[in-house]
C-alpha cells in the first residue's frame, strides 16, 4: 500500500516536472500543445476512493495552473476528467476482479482498452480545457481543432511514456 502510494507520488512529481519545465515550451504554435501530466490521473489505481481521486486530480490541476498562471483552468479540466474516469471505468470494467493497488497501465490492461481509455479521458480533459480557456463559443471550430490536435499530441506522448516504463516494469 505504501509502495503504490510512493510510486504514484513519484510519478506525480516526475510528470509535473516534465510538464512544467519541458512540455510548457513544446508545441506547434498555439494549435497543438501536449499535456502529459494527465497521465497522473490516468494511472491512479483502479480502486482508488472517489474522494482521493478528486483530490489528487484537483491538486495536480491546481499545481499546473500555478505554473501556467491560469488558476482554476486545469483544475476544472482535471475535475471533469476525474468524473469521466469514474464513469468510464464503471462502464467498461468489473472492479471486483482487480486487486487493490492495480494500476490501469498499458501493460496490465492491454492496448485496446488502454487506447480508448486514454483517448476518451484526454478528449474530455482537452475539450474542457480549451473551451474554458477561450471561454466563448464564437471560435468553436478553432477550439475544436486545437482540442483534437492537442489530444493527438498528448496521446502520442502518453504512449511513448507508457512504452518506456512498460518495458521497465516487466523487467
Amino acid at each position, binding site marked *: 500500500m505504501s509502495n503504490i502510494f510512493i510510486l504514484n507520488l513519484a510519478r506525480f512529481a516526475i510528470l509535473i516536472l516534465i510538464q512544467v519545465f519541458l512540455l510548457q515550451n513544446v508545441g506547434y504554435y498555439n494549435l497543438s500543445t501536449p499535456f502529459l501530466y494527465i497521465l497522473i490521473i490516468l494511472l491512479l489505481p483502479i480502486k482508488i476512493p472517489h474522494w482521493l481521486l478528486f483530490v489528487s486530480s484537483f491538486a495536480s490541476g*491546481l499545481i499546473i495552473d500555478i505554473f501556467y498562471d*491560469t488558476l482554476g*483552468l486545469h483544475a476544472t479540466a482535471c475535475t471533469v476528467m*476525474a468524473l469521466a474516469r469514474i464513469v468510464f471505468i464503471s462502464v467498461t470494467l468489473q472492479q471486483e476482479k482487480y486487486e487493490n493497488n492495480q494500476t490501469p497501465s498499458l501493460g496490465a490492461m492491454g492496448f485496446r482498452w488502454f487506447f480508448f481509455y486514454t483517448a476518451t479521458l484526454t478528449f474530455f480533459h482537452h475539450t474542457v480545457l480549451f473551451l474554458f480557456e477561450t471561454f466563448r463559443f464564437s471560435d468553436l471550430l478553432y477550439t475544436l481543432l486545437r482540442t483534437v490536435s492537442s489530444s493527438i499530441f498528448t496521446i502520442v506522448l502518453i504512449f511513448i511514456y507508457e512504452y518506456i516504463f512498460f518495458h521497465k516494469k516487466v523487467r
Partner: protein
Amino acid sequence: MRNLWLFISKYNAFFLFCLFFITSLTLLLNNNSYQRAWTSGVSGQFIGEVYERATFFKNYLHLEEVNTSLAQENARLKNELKSSFLIDSAEKHIVRDSIRKQQYIYIVARVVNNSIHQQNNYLIINRGSKHGIRKGMGVTGPDGIVGIVRDVTENFARVQSVLHSESRFSASVDGGIGSLVWDEGSLNSKIAILKDIPSHVKVKPNDPVTTSGYSLFPIGIQIGHVKRVGLKGGNSFLDIEVVLSTDFSSLQYVYVINNVLAREQQAIESQTQTP
C-alpha cells in the same frame, strides 16, 4: 437523514464532482482577468435585463401610488402657479362721460367657465360682490358686448350671455333703435337678430350695430355688423341678421361695466311703469 446520507454516498462521485468543479470554476473565474471580465460583462448584462423586467412589472404594481403622488405633485405645482392666486385688487378704471354726466366703472374679469352650445348660455367670471359687482351690470369683451350679470357670489359672478333665449339688448343701427335677441333656434354663436327696426330706416349689409345707450351699456359700444336685411311679410319692422363681433368661443377677459346711475334710472323707469 439516513436515507439522505445513503443517497449521497451512493452517488458520491457526482457530489464530489460538483464540489470540486464549483471550486475550480470559482478559482478560474475569480483569478483570470479575461474570464472574470467575460463573466462580469455577461452576468452584468443578464442581471441588468432581469432587473429591468422585474422593475417593469413592479412599476405596474406601484402604478396607483405613482399616480397619486403625481397628482399630488401636480396639485402642488398648480398651487404655485400665478394663475391660481386670486388677484384681489380688482382693477377699475373710470370713464367720465362729460356730456351726459354719467359715470361708468370698468372692472376687469377673467372668464373661468363658458358655454356656447346651450340654449341658455352663461359665463362664470372671477369677480364677485367683493369687487363691487352687482346683479344687472353689463359685461363687454374686447370686441363687443357679452352679456348681463345675473348672479353674484363673493368671488364669482354668473353672466347671462348674449347667447341666451331671454337676453334682450337695446341696439342701434343707422339711427334706428331696436332690440337684439339671439336666434336660439339656430344655436349659432355668431348670429343674432335685431328686431323692431322701423322699415323706413335704410339698413345695408356691413353697417355697424352698436349699443344705443338706453340700457346698461354706454352708447356706441360695438355689437357686430349687419349680415342680411329682411322684411317680414305684413310687418312694418325690419328683420336684421347681425354677425356678433364677440367671439364667445374664445372669450378670456371681459369688463364688467358698473353704471353708477343705473339704480336711479331703474327707479324712474319703474315709477313710469306703475300707474
